[in-house]
């Protein structure tokens, strides 16, 4: 009869995955520095906006999905989106460098960049 209890290897797997999660968390933690620009990466190309200049615009994504993006008081959020899961809207406001709003169905990523361009985090646009 086979065992029902977890085997030793199970704890190893859990430990490895938890360690990987903790490591990647440290590597991707949003910085505490203030962001300055908003980078919108969509199938139509990459566009950059000033984080401290209030704006509202539509971004056209894949499959004809349109997302309404609002920049207000130093933070960005997806106000409306035609995608099915609407996770981009649920993500809420982002304001720190390294934070992102991702819409998988529309192929849109909105990221915040800090004052020092590049190097700061792994945002490879293009």
């Amino acid at each position, binding site marked *: *009869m*086979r*065992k*029902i209890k*977890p*085997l*030793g*290897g*199970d*704890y*190893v*797997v*859990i430990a490895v*995955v*938890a360690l*990987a*999660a*903790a490591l*990647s*968390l440290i590597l*991707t933690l*949003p910085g505490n520095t203030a962001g300055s620009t908003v980078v919108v*990466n969509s199938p139509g190309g990459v566009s950059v906006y000033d984080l401290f200049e209030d704006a509202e615009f539509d971004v056209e994504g*894949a*499959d004809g999905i349109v997302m309404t993006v609002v920049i207000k008081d130093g933070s960005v959020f997806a106000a409306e989106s035609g995608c099915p*899961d609407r*996770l*981009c809207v*649920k*993500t*809420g406001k982002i304001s720190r460098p*390294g*934070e*992102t709003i*991702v*819409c*998988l*169905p529309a*192929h849109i*990523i909105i*990221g915040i960049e800090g004052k020092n361009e590049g190097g700061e985090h*792994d*945002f*490879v*646009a*293009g």
Partner: protein
Amino acid sequence: MTSSRDKGISSPAKLSRTAMLLGAALMLSYLESLIPLPLPLPGFKLGLANIALIICFEQISPLSALFLQILRISISALLFGSPTSLWFSLAGGAASYIVVALFYAFLRKYVSELGISIASAAMHNMGQLAAAAIIFSSAAVFNYLPWLLFASIIFGSITGIICRLVNKAVYEAENRRKTVIEKI
């Protein structure tokens, strides 16, 4: 320890069991698409269909599991997916199949369905993120990796426990059948 695949189960029996598991996997995929997730994690899924994959590995064979995985992904993309979601599921499905196959080939003695299920969920998420990074041509999606990995531990444990309960029930039923046949 002999598993059922070594007991000379005839090919039609294998085929019908695989087909039954495929049906179950498709139902689980559908169920999963009905449950809205409160977490703002793009690409995150409960991974219920993984239950069928691991049961297939345990009770039938790696080859049957490969057919199960390919058919499950293509049929569920046709039925409930979009062209984009097909690529994500293919990348995630391939990654999780490979990791489960490696565990069954080399480490099954040391790791139970629980650990295999967690590893498979983690690799599924990483495969999906890699596909997303290629489609978006941006590494920014990897910001979600830590949360997806933590979620894999929780939901991988749940699916792993379900796998183990099902496998145990099937083995017990087989043992009962064997003793009945011996008595006759």
